[in-house]
């Protein structure tokens, strides 16, 4: 009876299989939902969804499907009652169109409007589509129907299925969201390439060798040890620091923490630059002249087997990228930044650019340097999906 729900879930990107669907039907047969809609919600979620990263997608699809559902009498009576009288709407009707319009707003837009509204609003409002208040379709306030927006104080409710799903509180776990240290760490574990050729001591028990040697030794036990397999991946991390990057400092620090804590790399080198790489590059993020070293030194001394990760927003004044003699931190330079970047690209076959920011959507002047760099470098956002693609890219030979 819900087969279309199954297809909706799949259409919304949840990998629900027929097996799981059959389990759900079996569970419903056994009455495991306890004849309640909330029970039904948790039952569906427990059986069909296998990662908290997908909870939000599920909540979205669940709301979409059951919001306007005409229930037949096959379903329990209390569910029917509940749907006829969902107690959220008792405060009167409001404008559906406003709900839809507000649902389409971007986050920044919502923030801007929120601040404006705070200025304007002088009294309490409940149930409308414009002011900050409870219920209603405005993107601000509490208990509203809109799926995104700013919640103003108050307790979250978690009793009924619609409210649980409507809260969409697993939004943060979505894979297209940006990341924390732990998620970075998990991601960086993918940078692995095992090899036993390392110059380590023989410490690992070699079963096959032992059997072979024992047989050769006429059955008298002879134990053989072997070298442990070790990760041979070396990483060179180049981070943009300061300026327009300050806005992303928290995310970048999480990334940095994750990389520096990943003790499975054979070697890790970290350097900092401002805006773009020039003839000098810095060992500390404050970029004190004392910590400067020649970029040429890196190109000559750090071998091409290093996997290079550049982190930066790729947004600067076009002259900072394209023209030579850019004066930066005491480093007078005749080679333009883009040329330095290309030198890195030439030297290191495994190189990716991680960008904490998106291409500026207003385009034009600010997107100019982004577009130029993007032509030479594969750019990846700092989201779980993008990061995985980027790291995969680092591991394969082009």
């Amino acid at each position, binding site marked *: 009876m819900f087969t279309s729900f199954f297809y909706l879930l799949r259409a919304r990107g949840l*990998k629900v*299989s027929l*097996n*799981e669907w059959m*389990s759900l039907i*079996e*569970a419903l047969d*056994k009455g*495991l939902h*306890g004849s309640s809609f909330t*029970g039904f919600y*948790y*039952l569906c*979620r*427990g*059986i069909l*969804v*296998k*990662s*908290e990263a997908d*909870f939000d997608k599920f909540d979205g699809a669940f709301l979409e499907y059951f919001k306007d559902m005409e229930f037949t009498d096959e379903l329990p009576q209390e569910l029917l009652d509940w749907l006829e009288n969902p107690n959220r709407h008792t405060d009167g009707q409001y404008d559906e169109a406003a709900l839809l319009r507000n649902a389409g707003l971007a986050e920044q837009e919502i923030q801007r409007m929120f601040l404006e509204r705070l200025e304007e609003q002088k009294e309490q409002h409940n149930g409308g589509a414009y002011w900050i208040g409870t219920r209603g379709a405005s993107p601000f306030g509490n208990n509203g129907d809109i799926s995104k927006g700013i919640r103003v104080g108050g307790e979250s409710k978690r009793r009924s299925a619609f409210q649980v799903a409507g809260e969409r509180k697993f939004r943060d776990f979505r894979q297209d969201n940006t990341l924390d*240290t732990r998620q970075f760490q*998990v991601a960086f*574990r993918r940078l692995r390439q095992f090899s036993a050729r390392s110059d380590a001591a023989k410490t690992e028990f070699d079963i096959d060798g032992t059997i072979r040697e*024992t047989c050769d030794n006429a*059955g*008298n*036990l002879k134990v053989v040890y072997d070298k442990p397999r070790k990760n041979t991946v070396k990483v060179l991390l180049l981070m943009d620091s300061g300026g327009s990057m300050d806005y992303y400092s*928290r995310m970048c620090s999480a990334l940095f*923490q994750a990389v520096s804590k990943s003790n499975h790399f054979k070697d890790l080198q970290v350097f900092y630059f401002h805006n773009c790489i020039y003839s000098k590059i810095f060992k500390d993020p404050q970029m004190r002249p004392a910590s400067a070293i020649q970029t040429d030194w890196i190109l000559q001394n750090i071998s091409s087997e290093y996997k290079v990760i550049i982190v930066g927003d790729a947004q600067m004044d076009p002259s900072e990228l394209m023209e030579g003699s850019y004066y930066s931190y005491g480093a007078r330079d005749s080679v333009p930044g883009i040329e330095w970047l290309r030198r890195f690209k030439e030297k290191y076959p495994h190189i990716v650019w991680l960008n904490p920011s998106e291409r500026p959507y207003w385009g034009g002047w600010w997107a100019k340097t982004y577009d130029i760099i993007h032509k030479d470098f594969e750019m990846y956002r700092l989201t779980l999906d993008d990061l995985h693609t980027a790291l995969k890219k680092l591991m394969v030979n082009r």
Partner: protein
Amino acid sequence: MEQTFQGSKDYVASQELMRSVNISIALQKPLLIKGEPGTGKTMLAEAISQALGKKLIIWNIKSTTKAQDGLYVYDVVQRLYDSQFGNEGVDDIGKYVKLGKLGEAFSSEEQVILLIDEIDKADLEFPNDLLWELDKMEFYIPETKETVKAKQRPIVIVTSNAEKELPDAFLRRCIFHYIEFPDEEQMEEIIKVHFDHVEEHLLQQVLETFYWIRGLYNIQKKPSTSEVIDWIHALVLGGVDPDKIRETVPFAGVLLKKNEDVDTMKRYMKNR
């Protein structure tokens, strides 16, 4: 036989968690538990075993654990040694086959709870190697030509810290539950389970401060349930005046394990 789990004396389970446990028992599928560290994933299995009065078998997974270890181990080296000294019973292979935790759970006369703890620690392919065994609840030992088949299907609980993605084929066979961090109300309940009597005023101050710290923007390692319990122990033993807790946050080292976090907290305390 109707078995339901309603939480236990020492373990406070949320409605949703109890639901998931009961669903997994009824459908005879493994229950996969994920959640922040310190939300009591491992303790859940103990609580279920207590509540249902069943024996608990714990299989701790390490990075070197192989699926085979859980089924049985054939001790070739021991047999080889024994044969060299002409010991008795070398002919009997069965003597050298030792059942692992999974084998133990299968061969038990009564239904048991099997906890596969931190499955994500093992190799990426590990869960896939257990698909058949968990589905059919049986495995074959070629050395002795024996099949070990579950006499009573064990209730299987699997925990994961999300260090690795688990394979889809494995996930499809599980019931999934994500333990959320308890809210203040639940936390109060949990604390009351661990302490016979905590002064109400102290408890309020502790919870307020604890959630304030968890809510701070820059905290890298958020304190969890086990830390707040240790903290209350420390506060009670230290005889700290409850009114001072919010202002001075004594024994902050119990809550925050990183120097940076303690500094962050102090910075925020000044501005509070």
